[in-house]
């Protein structure tokens, strides 16, 4: 039983092929990680789900279903209303607006009424007390870590059932990245499914139950996060572990199989 099912998704930006035949399952209640280097297609995958490829003149084929509802053909606002909210890469807070107004903006796509919004705000302030302290400050004046908190808090204002996170640890000091990771766990524990896109594989594999590795637009590896973390190729390429035999293994792996289960068999 998966909440989000992506099947045979291919996306291009004009002549540029960004994703080829990608299938990903994000099970309800879990954290699912998507790893990959620069240009692997991680952001493109999230854009396809949130229906914002149009902003980049991207087009795609394949199916995306959330709890059985087809998302293709919906607009971004309808995807939010369906319960899927994306936190964009690079935070993208509304820098000229106050922290409080950023959170208000996040609630504009919410389905529930005033009560639900008030409850969401209380919860966001519990998760990120700093957002309450800085409520009337302009968001552009926050530190990078605080902006990431604001971006996540803003997305939570819509009361999502599935949260899409695009590289939340990008550009953050290790301590702050750690704090964000803990918060992601806390959000998940409270019942929100999470699709976590990261280049920082060590953090992502620690949080996630299952993980996918994208390589130049294709799923190169998939499997339980623990197994992936132990695999030599992932260790070498994403965890910075250098090891001669692992490198050879990975070379061979690159030529042959596609999923971790087949690869390790």
């Amino acid at each position, binding site marked *: 039983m998966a909440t989000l099912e992506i099947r045979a998704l291919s996306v291009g930006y004009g002549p540029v092929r960004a994703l080829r035949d990608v299938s990903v399952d994000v099970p309800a209640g879990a954290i699912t990680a998507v790893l990959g280097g620069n240009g692997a297609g991680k952001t493109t995958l999230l854009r396809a789900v949130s229906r914002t490829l149009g902003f980049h003149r991207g087009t795609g084929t394949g199916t995306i279903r959330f709890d059985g509802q087809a998302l293709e053909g919906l607009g971004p606002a309808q995807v*939010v209303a369906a319960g899927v909210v994306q936190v964009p890469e690079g935070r*993208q807070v509304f820098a000229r607006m106050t922290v409080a*107004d950023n959170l208000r903006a996040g609630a504009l796509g919410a389905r529930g009424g005033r009560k639900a919004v008030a409850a969401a705000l209380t919860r966001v302030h519990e998760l990120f007390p700093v957002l309450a302290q800085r409520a009337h400050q302009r968001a552009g004046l926050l530190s990078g870590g605080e902006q990431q908190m604001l971006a996540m808090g803003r997305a939570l204002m819509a009361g999502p059932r599935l949260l899409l996170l695009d590289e939340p640890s990008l550009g953050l000091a290790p301590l702050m990245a750690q704090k964000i990771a803990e918060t992601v766990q806390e959000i998940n524990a409270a019942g929100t499914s999470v699709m976590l896109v990261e280049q920082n594989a060590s953090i992502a594999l620690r949080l996630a139950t299952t993980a996918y590795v994208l390589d130049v637009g294709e799923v190169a590896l998939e499997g339980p996060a623990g197994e992936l973390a132990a695999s030599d190729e992932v260790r070498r390429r994403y965890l910075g572990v250098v090891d001669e035999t692992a490198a050879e293994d990975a070379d061979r792996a690159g030529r042959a199989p596609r999923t971790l289960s087949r690869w390790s068999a």
Partner: protein
Amino acid sequence: MTTFIELLLGGLSIGSVYALIALGFVVIFKATEVVNFAHASLLLAGGYVTAVLHDDIGFWPALGVGIAGAAVVGAGVEFFVMRRYRGSDHSVLAIVTIGVDIILVTELTRRMGTDVMALGDPWGDDVVTIGGVTLAETRIAAFLVAGLLITVFLLAFRFTSWGVSMRAAAENPQTAALMGIKLGRVSLSAWAVAGALAAVAALFLTVFPTPGLERATSLAALKAFPAAILGGLDSTTGALAGGLIVGVTESLATGYQSDLSFLGRGIGDLAPYLVMVIVLLVRPAGLFGTKELARV
């Protein structure tokens, strides 16, 4: 001195009307990044509806219908024309608005012919004299009404959900969409609000001492362009400041025309543009703007 005060107050009054027009212009630019060259035609449409109806249904209802009518025309332009070009280059969009302007103005002036139409306002040519300073009632009404509308608009922009969605969409449309904000609705409401404000401005551009609504009214409306540009195209504060600066400059330059005769005749009409050019030389993004015009 009395002359100076009269000119200054007159300038502030007409300036607040320019500010109304410029505000609508800025709202459309902020929400959609479109430089709306059809703005003067929205104003003409609102004024025309009021002028045609006031005899039959009375001035205030006619004004109400005129405001609503201009809002509908604005929304219609967005919905039936601009929306088709979504995603096009900003310069293409600006040129599309020029096309819209030509169509609307041609149709409206065909209907008006060479008539000068009265809008049936209650103030007529009454004047008020306080301490030797004489002001037309229409000028006082213009200042009060424009001030009130601008205040209401700014409060709404700052405090309502509509304002939050406008500002979010203006700052980052894609992220606004990710929050579930409907960009189509944002731009539709921007055009409607701009039309409504322009219709009110139409009233005050055509009351005493101006003879009435005529073809040339759209030319008067064009003075809101230098107002918006010198204030900064993406700044509501800039629209207000720009409107007042243009109004006062025009009023003083016209009033002291004879003393400025070395600059040639008609300096009053030219002055707003001179001020605009000087401001842009010093501050290319306008007084309060953040985006340089070159981006358009």
